[in-house]
């Protein structure tokens, strides 16, 4: 184990999904058109840090999260944990003790037939984290208290809990293996705003108490802004900008980031948006546009953008932008 290496390091990660060909396409001899959901993503996560990952549907943010968690095998690229390959030499069980994942829908990710106690006890037992019935029971109670649930409710089945409470149970299950990294994929998107705030606060509290690092994936920029130290913005499988949260909101460097920020409806009737909407829609990810992938929608597009694909260039420490016209505001 290398103490100088970052907690988590992702290098040039690529994940493609082979497309099924229809019989007709097969007869015509068409090549399978693979979908590259993640196209060469590199990122780092430090101990106790929260990296927000944002982008619209189909940008590859969830696929990236699943690759890091080991739920998908990357097509190429690597994931290192403190300088050691995270998946590969270790068994799935070992690596799952380091990285845990929390999903959007706690209804679907909890076994409806297991009580909360059995759900949590099973994790503790499988990983050998406590021995003996009373030690396991104590740990279950501790986990429930940690996520703000009463241990008295532990014999209940998941359906008797509200959506927010169910998400607390999912969090308790993730915490059961004492991970250092949690990948949270849209963890509050299904919740009403008053409940969403409870769970967002819980994430912040747990980070402070347990020193967790989060990769926090969400489409809601306000939520991500609230919890993240840094934010990475994805578009068509690539990171187009990464920056410290405050910097990103103060001065977005990529025109896509700027469009995303200005599209958030502000809860203030005195500041109605009169800016022009970002044009068009996400291109078919099977056929990303040549040059810069954003050129078909970019308000700043010039000839070079259609030909030459930009690199993710560092503009200042902790700030990188993939754009030929980074930080420019108007067409010139």
């Amino acid at each position, binding site marked *: 184990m290398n103490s100088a290496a970052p907690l988590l390091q992702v290098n040039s990660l690529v994940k493609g999904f082979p497309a099924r060909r229809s019989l007709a396409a097969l007869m015509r001899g068409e090549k399978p058109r693979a979908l590259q959901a993640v196209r060469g993503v590199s990122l780092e996560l430090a101990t106790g840090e929260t990296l927000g990952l944002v982008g619209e549907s189909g940008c590859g943010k969830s696929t990236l999260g699943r690759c890091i968690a080991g739920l998908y095998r990357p097509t190429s690229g690597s994931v290192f944990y403190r300088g050691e390959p995270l998946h590969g030499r270790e068994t799935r069980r070992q690596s799952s003790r380091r990285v845990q994942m929390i999903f959007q829908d706690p209804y679907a990710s909890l076994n409806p037939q297991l009580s909360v106690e059995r759900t949590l006890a099973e994790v503790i037992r499988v990983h050998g984290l406590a021995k003996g019935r009373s030690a396991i029971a104590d740990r279950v109670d501790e986990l429930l208290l940690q996520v703000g649930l009463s241990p008295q409710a532990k014999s209940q089945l998941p359906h008797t809990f509200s959506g927010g409470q169910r998400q607390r149970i999912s969090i308790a299950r993730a915490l059961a293996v004492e991970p250092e990294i949690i990948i949270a994929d849209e963890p509050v998107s299904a919740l009403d705003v*008053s409940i*969403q*705030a409870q769970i*967002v606060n819980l994430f912040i509290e747990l980070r402070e108490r347990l020193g967790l690092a989060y990769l926090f994936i969400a489409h809601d920029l306000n939520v991500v802004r*609230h919890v993240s130290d840094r934010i990475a913005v994805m578009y068509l499988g690539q990171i187009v900008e990464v920056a410290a949260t405050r910097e990103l909101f103060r001065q977005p460097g990529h025109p896509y980031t700027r469009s995303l920020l200005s599209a958030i*409806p502000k809860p203030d*009737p005195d500041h109605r*948006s009169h800016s022009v909407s970002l044009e068009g*829609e996400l291109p078919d990810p099977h056929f990303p546009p040549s040059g810069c992938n954003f050129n078909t929608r970019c308000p700043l597009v010039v000839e070079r953008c259609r030909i030459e694909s930009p690199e993710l260039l560092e503009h200042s420490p902790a700030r990188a932008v993939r754009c030929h016209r980074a930080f420019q505001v108007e067409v010139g």
Partner: protein
Amino acid sequence: MAPIHTQPLLSVRDLVTVFEMPGRSARGVDGVSFEVGQGEVFGLVGESGCGKTATCRSILRLFAGAPARIERGEILFGGLDLLRLDEERLSDIRGAQVAMIFQDPMTSLNPTMRIGAQIGEGLRRHQKLGRAEARRRAFELLASVGVPNPASRLDDYPHQFSGGMRQRVMIAIALACRPKLLIADEPTTALDVTIQDQILKLLLRLKNEYGMSVLIVTHDLGVVAQTCDRVAVMYAGRIAELAEARSLFRNPRHPYTRALLKSLPGLEIEGRRLAPIGGAPPDLARLPPGCRFHPRCAYAVAECRAQLPPLILVGEGHATACIRHESLP
């Protein structure tokens, strides 16, 4: 800001809509009254189960198979009580004078019918247009809602459109007969934020072009602030607060509205603890006595448990259902 109009286009009075479930029933909408003025954008906002969708669906009695029954109330539209109309006469109004769009356009479009025919269907039914004329109008409508290459897309099927484009098609269908009122039930909830921005701006532009009123139902206070002239905040089947949008956001007079606004992330400095509302909304079949928000309310006193608070006028066009509104900090 739209002025308060003398003659409202839509007037909902004391609406009660009951959901019948096996062994029990619940009032999804319990005594809701509000008015929508000519050319006004009116918002119904609240969290899941607050009755906002049930309220707007009661207007056209489109419950999508839910076991809902309107128990009492009046829904006055242009002098007509829609609740007294039989199904046949109501369907003359649906799609012609009052149109509706939904969260998920895929489930409200016919998957086996070409888009052009679906847009023209209402025109042929309500305005008795011929096939060619309906198709010409469909082309104009598709162009006006911003679908690229409208001529060639008339012959496409719904699955050939993206989510954002499908919502544009739905809007074209809704506007075909130039309705006086458009009901939009969570019209952008399923869409990405940049597409939401496009659709909201499109709706506001078309509202002005067509001179119609819009009743928008949403859970998103940002959408309300960006689009609505007036707003009703709903909680557990009732209106908690009703005001002009600016007045509601600047000077909320109901503890629930205040709590909702405080629980929004991203308004202030990062890292700030959000102020969530403790607990969860009540089960409509087992409501607490008195004010339905009192178990979660920071300002509740014994009196709040005694009776259902009525809407009290606290300013021009601003009403709150809180007996403690004068004591709020």
